């Protein structure tokens, strides 16, 4: 038994006295959930995905890993790349993947002319965003040699039966966010301000809670926004 979008719909109906908002509540719930997902590095939203292999080839397309799994996933941000089957994890490999990746493949003894990686920009393909990656010279034909850990967006809510753990854990927060949109739609600006302040207060609680979790995880310590923004640990 989990909280569902249907419960948000019912709550909005009661709280606004308007029973015609159900479809819009689904849209608004999505916007609120996506907004929440981009406000904090949620531990529970971190995903790990294998990257497949990066064969050393002479064509430019071979240098790019167009991640099939990512084509239908919802990447917010890449955290880091780790080695899986290719041996030990060199410490510096945890350097920011968006910059110069200093790590090396410990199991590969051949030529290593440079260590470089530029991932992360996206291109439009159909209706999804597909991040492109280049990883070189991690010369390996072993499958799943690398794992990427990334922050994922919540799956899109599609109707009354849709669920998400954020809805379970922070139901009041989601409802407040939806209510502020409902109030705006209904032209009730005073109502908007009331629900907005409730949303902001709940949001503060949520971020405190999530930061406490993240800060206690060594490798993620530097990710806590308030710590990062005041200059590091």
């Amino acid at each position, binding site marked *: 038994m989990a909280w569902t979008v249907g419960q948000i719909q019912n709550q909005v109906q009661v709280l606004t006295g308007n029973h015609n908002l159900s479809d819009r509540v689904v*849209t608004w719930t999505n*916007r609120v959930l*996506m907004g929440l*997902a*981009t*406000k904090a*590095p949620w531990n529970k939203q971190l995903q790990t995905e294998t990257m497949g292999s990066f064969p050393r080839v*002479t064509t*430019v397309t071979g*240098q790019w890993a167009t991640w099939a799994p990512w084509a*239908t*996933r*919802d990447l*917010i*941000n*890449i*955290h*880091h790349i780790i080695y899986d089957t290719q041996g030990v994890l060199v410490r*510096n490999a*945890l*350097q*920011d*993947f*968006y*910059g*110069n990746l200093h790590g090396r493949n410990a199991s590969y003894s051949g030529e290593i*002319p*440079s260590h*470089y990686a*530029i991932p*992360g*920009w*996206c*291109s*439009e393909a159909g*209706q*999804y*965003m597909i991040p*492109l990656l280049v990883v070189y*010279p991690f010369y390996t034909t072993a499958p799943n040699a690398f794992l990427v850990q990334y922050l994922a*967006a*919540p*799956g*899109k809510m599609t109707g009354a039966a849709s669920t998400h753990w954020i809805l379970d854990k922070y139901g009041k927060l989601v409802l407040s966010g939806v209510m502020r*949109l409902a109030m*705006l*739609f*209904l*032209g009730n600006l005073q109502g*908007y301000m009331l629900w907005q302040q409730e949303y902001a207060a709940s949001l503060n609680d949520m971020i405190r809670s999530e930061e406490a979790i993240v800060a206690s995880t060594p*490798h*993620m*310590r*530097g*990710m806590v*926004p308030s710590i*990062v*923004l005041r200059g*590091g*640990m």
Partner: protein
Amino acid sequence: MANPMSLVSSLAQEVADILGIDNLDARLYEWLGFIFNDLCQRVPDPLFYTTSVDTIVSGASSSTLGESIGTPVALMIVNTTGDLYIPVYRPPAEFDRLVNIGSTIAAGVQPLIWTVVPAGTTQKIRISPPASGDMILTLVWSGNYYAAPPTADDRLPLPYHFEGVLVWGAAWFASMSIAPDRAMVCKMEYETALQDMVKILALHSDSVPQMRQIEGPLAGFQPGLPRIPQTLGG
């Protein structure tokens, strides 16, 4: 799990709901286009980076780019044996000086420096020393934008989870004139969502802003964001 990007017409409906006005015409789509291009400038992130792939043939030192680019960021070169090079970017004037000082540069296997010579829509990418064997170039550049007014069936190239920024931005832009009582609300929501987007894109496990160490004009800093000291692995 898959979140398809929304149609512009769907985003427009959300904007109309926020404004409380349901008879807006197609110009609403243009507001979304304005805001998207605004984001391209305000979100300094590879999210809006673009790549151009080109070839410099054996013995040559330049190639005309197939498209007009913005600011060059990085260049990766793969030669026919599969070796990857990351030559250092030089601005055009300095590049020219270095090439001349070197007088005769023997063709080598590893390009050392590169630049993009601006010339309207026919920019040229130059490397030195010249290519030894055909070389495939992947140029990363910033400054992309949505070049045409969006229409109802378009999808602006922004992931679904960031579309809220577009919606609030367009609502703010329009509300200044047609729903001024909501303008400040929309402005606040827009700036908050935009700030969240920039922050979450800039955060990484070791707190190093992305792209800092990439060679090119943008090396060493990330425009628009505070410099964040490296905390782990530093």
